[in-house]
Each structure stands twice: as C-alpha cells, then as structure tokens.
C-alpha cells in the first residue's frame, strides 16, 4: 500500500503544460524529495496532490483517496506547509495554534495534547503569549510545521519549507522531519538546497513539467552519471572553465566555490591532459582529483543533457 500514488498527472494552463504526464509512488513513512528548478511544476504538483487544484487529466491517490473524486477526504488526511510559513504575525503563538486547531475541528483533551506537542517541537513552552511576528525565522518555521500537522495527518506536504532560514535552523528542522518520518508520517518535500536532498529516502527530479530522474541519492549518482567527476583547484577558475568547456573530453563544467567540477567522458585519459593545457595558458593547477559526485553534479549533468 503506497501513501501517494500518482498516475499520468497532467496540468495545463491554457497552452502551457505545467505538469506533463508524471507518475510515481511514495511509500508510507518515506521522506520524499521533489526537486526541480523554479517553474518546473513543483508547486503545481503539490497543489494538485493537496486537492486544491484540479488536474487537467490523470489522477493521484493520496492517503487512500482520489484527488479528483474525493478532494475533501484528501484534505482531511494531509498537512501542508508553504515556504511563506502561513502564520498570522499579528496573533500570539497560542492564538495561532488555537486558530489552526479550530480550523481542523480539534477540541477537548486531544486539542490540549496537540497544542502542547506543537509548543514543544517549536521550543515555545512558556512563550505562548509572544507575538508570532517577533519570532526568529527558525522558530517560526517550526511553529508553522507544528500547526500544519496539528491534526496528525498521515501525510505532510512541505513546499520549500527551509527557504530563507539560517543553516543551523535548517539542520534542526531536518531533525524534526526525520522524527515525523520515524513516526510513520510520509513527508513530501520540495527544496532548493541540494545538500538537503541527500537526507531524502527517495528523490524525484522534474524539469519543465516532466519527470527526468528518480531514485535514492546513491542510485541517482550511479545510475544517471556514468562519467567521472574531477575537482580542479587552480589560480584562475573562470578562465580555466572557458578553456576546458571547448575540449572534446569534457561534457560539462561548473563552479563550486573556488573550484571547478569537470564532468569528463571516455576521451579523457589522465590528469596530464588537463594540467598541460592549463599551464600553457599560464594557469597554476594546485589540485586535481577524482571525487564522489554530489547531487548537484548529477542534476547539472541531467539538465545539460536535456538542452
């Protein structure tokens, strides 16, 4: 039994196809990363899976209910948190929790219990009367997640929940996501940060509404990237990039901090090939090694191929 099952889901806005015939399955309790550039169709897909946007064709079964036929039942079984942390800044922490609890129809002991839980995960015990607008981003984000799952849904959709939050808060947030997953909740998450994608059990990459890669992080690195990746440290990476791009033994180049990542193909023989070339152009090579590819390498490779 899958938690989410998507079958040939398509969404068209006029002539523009935002989501183009995608299908995938998500296991219960899985952390499922849904990645893609801005405008790739991530949010549109999430909105359809949440039952607030009707698909043009295809269907998805979320928590056992069809998003086309029973969107209201879908809504009862999911939580949703957007990048905008939809909390009311002019309400106190407690009033926000009360509001979302009320919207989800919670009451009595269960409500008190859930309110405590939300305060607990957001580290806001004893600070119930604080204005939400005065909270730091990381705390707000945890409070937003807490209120999004206050009704204990089996599935939670997080649409870029970590954008605009500092790295430490992001790491703490991922711990929270892991906790949810360990408790059997399916976490469907989109993110811009590829290093975060490494924490996912399964990743799906979409581009221009089409599914282009699928698997766990390890599978993605081995199945979709046959070439080796070299990391080059040199005195003038920008100039080096220009020179190397035109070489027939290199498929793609990209800048990582001060270094260059080179995606080399079968025409590549050894390091000398590159070193010689750069020295002749007066570029000092201080390091050149084969590395384990990052997800970013994989995606750059995949998106390059699409072009």
């Amino acid at each position, binding site marked *: 039994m899958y938690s989410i099952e998507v079958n040939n889901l398509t969404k068209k*806005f*006029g002539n523009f196809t935002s989501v183009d015939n995608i299908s995938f399955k998500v296991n219960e309790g899985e952390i499922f990363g849904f990645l893609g550039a801005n405008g790739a169709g991530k949010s549109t897909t999430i909105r359809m899976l*949440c*039952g*607030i*946007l*009707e698909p043009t064709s295809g269907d998805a079964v979320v928590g056992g209910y069809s998003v086309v036929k029973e969107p*209201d039942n879908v*809504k*009862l079984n*999911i*939580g*949703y*948190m*957007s990048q*905008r942390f*939809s*909390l*009311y800044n*002019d*309400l106190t922490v407690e*009033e926000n929790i*009360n*509001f*979302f*609890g*009320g*919207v*989800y*129809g919670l*009451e009595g002991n269960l409500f008190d219990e859930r309110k405590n839980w939300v305060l607990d995960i957001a580290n806001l015990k004893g600070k119930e009367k604080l204005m939400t607008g005065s909270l730091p981003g990381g705390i707000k984000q945890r409070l937003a997640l807490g209120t*999004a799952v206050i009704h204990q849904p089996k599935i939670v959709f997080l649409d870029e929940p970590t954008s605009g939050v500092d790295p430490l808060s992001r790491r703490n947030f991922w711990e929270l996501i892991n906790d949810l997953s360990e408790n059997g909740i399916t976490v469907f998450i989109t993110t811009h940060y590829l290093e975060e994608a490494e924490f996912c059990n399964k990743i799906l990459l979409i581009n221009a509404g089409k599914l282009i890669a699928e698997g766990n992080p390890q599978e993605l690195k081995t199945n979709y990237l046959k070439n080796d990746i070299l990391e080059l440290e040199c005195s003038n990476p920008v100039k080096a990039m220009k020179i190397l791009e035109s070489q027939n033994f290199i498929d793609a180049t990209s800048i990582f901090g001060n270094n260059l990542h080179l995606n080399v193909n079968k025409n590549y023989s050894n390091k000398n090939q590159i070193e010689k070339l750069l020295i002749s152009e007066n570029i000092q090579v201080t390091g050149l090694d084969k590395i384990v590819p990052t997800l970013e390498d994989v995606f750059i490779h995949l998106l390059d191929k699409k072009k």
Partner: protein
Amino acid sequence: MFRRTRAIAKKEFKQLWRDKRLLFVILFFPIFLLIIFGYAVNFDVKNIQLAVLDKNNTEVSRDFVNSILSSNYFKLAKQLNNDSEIKETLDKKSAQIVLVIPKDFSKNIHTHKQPAKIQFLIDGVDGNTATIIKNYASAASTKFAIKLQKNLTQKYGVKMSYPVLLEPIFWFNPDLQTTKFLIPGLIAMILIVSSVISVSLSLVKEKELGTIEQINVSSINSFELLSGKSAPYIVVAFFDAILILIVGYIFFDVIVKGNYFFLFISTLIYIISATSMGIFISVISETQQIAFTIATFATLLPSVILSGFIFPIESMPVIIQYLTNITPAKFFIIVLRAIIIRGVGLSAFWMQLIYLILFTLVFMGLAIIISKKQEVK
C-alpha cells in the same frame, strides 16, 4: 461545523482588536461623517442677504421692507442709494436678493389706479436656492398685499372673506428638517462603505500573505470560511449603526418612529448584501490596494449620488434611474425612511428587502463562479 466558523471569527476579531488604527477609523468615521453631513449639508435657506433700494422712501415703503424682514428668512445686508449700485451688489455677492421699490410705490397704493409694482433681483447662480428665495419673497409680498386689502375693505365697512385658504401641513417631518431626511441616507452610506472595504481588505490580505492557501488545504468549506470572516465586520457594522442612531438623536433629535425589530432585521439583510459585494471584490482583486480602490469607488459614489440619499431618483433621466439599482443603498434608504421617519410597517418595504436578498445572491454567485474559474487557471 460551527467550531470551524467560530475559530475563524475569533481570529478575525483578535486581529481587528489589535489593529487599533483600523478600529478607530471604523468607529470614528461614522460619527465624524454624520456630524459633518448633519451640519454642512443643509438645504434649508435661512438668513438671505437682502439689499434694498427704496426710491420711494415713504412710510408705506418702509412698512413694506419691514414686513419682508419680519419673516425671519431675510436679513438686511445694506441700503442702496441708486440704480448703479444694484449691479455692483450682485456682482460682489454682497446680497443674494435686491429689492427695488419704485418712486411711485406709495402713490399707486393710495390711488388704487394701478397696482404698485416692486422688483426683486435674485442671484440665479444656484437655481435651487434662487427658487426658494423667490418663493419666500413672493409669499412675504402677498402677505403685505393681503394686509393692505384688509385695511382698505375695512375702511369701506365691508368684511373681507377668503374664498380659498391654503393650509399646508408637512407630514412625517413637520419642520422640514434636512437632517431628518439625511440620517437614513447617511446610515446606508456609512454601513456600505465600511463593510465592503473591511470585508474585501480582510479577505485579500489573506491572499497576499498566502494564509488563504493554508486555510484552503484544511477541510473547511467556503461557507464556513466566509461566514467566519464576515461575522466580526457584521457585528462592527451593527455597532456603527447603533452609534449613528445615538449620535443622530443627541445632535439632531432624530428618533426611530417605527419598529426596532424590523430595523434590526433589515439592517442585517443590508449588511449581508454589502458583505457579498466585499467578497466579490476580494475575488477580483489581487492586492489590498486594488481592493481598496475598487471598494471605495463601488460604494462611495453610488451610495451618495445614485441612492436617493441627496438627489431624488424620480427627477433623474430614465437611464440613470435604471442605473441606480446597482447600489443596495438605494433600497435600504427606502426601508430606513419608512421605519425611522414614517414609522410604517413591513408592507411598505418588503419589496426592498427581497431586492437586497436577490442582490446578495447574485454577488455571491458571481464570486463563486469567478473564484472557481481562477482556480482552474
């Protein structure tokens, strides 16, 4: 179901309560408008500035001037000495009316050979006021003429009788006070402006902040959402209505003659129709700024100009008369005048209430259709 509506309404109340500036505007604006309108918008013509050119300058002519002044409507602005001053007086607006008594005034009165003529020159720039001044002036002159005639007939020992005596009584508003007539229009205007603006802004704000999406993914339905969101503003609008009635009583002696229950029910129906307009505007506006502009434009002008609040609808061109149906204020004003001023029952205004309900249904229907379309987009 009520638990969810209550959660929304409670939240909305809290937000409104914290927004002291908005709260102040909503509560103070009606009183401010009422007092300004009540004192400034006044169609009663009093203290008309009168200039007199008395070429006759006899006891009779002075008697005539005094009898004009005794009516309390006119105030002697100045005495003129020759014809050339007339033009100057009117040009400079130092008087609204100039009374010219010819040289032969007393001679004609005493000889009875021909009627004694007098001339009134009235500033006709404001046609409405000019007509009123003319009526006052001719009434005052007639009174003087009757007095003379009475004296004359008595001199010959004949008792004078009037074949027809006109005795007008103004029903509902015996003193013809403008404020009494204005209060219903003011209530209608203030309620529609404040409810449409506040409801549309509060809904568009959720759109702008993205919080509406969070609410949409919960299983709440649009009826629960909209009724919860409107409830606080309906309560505030009611409070406004009561405030206006109290201030109207204190400052302008306006009392409700009719039934308070009908007043309550019709005000509720009216506020709900205004709310439906606010909801409609929130659906077609993306930002609070746009919503505010549309809401102001759609409520303020029609409720002042097209509602019959100030200008009688019957004297508008037919096409404009049809156009007046776009504002629910028109119908509510009829209801309010019936209840507050005339004190009559439901039979006088049930049609208007039905229209207000239809108006609400049409706007809610449109709002639902358009928002469904936007969703699919």
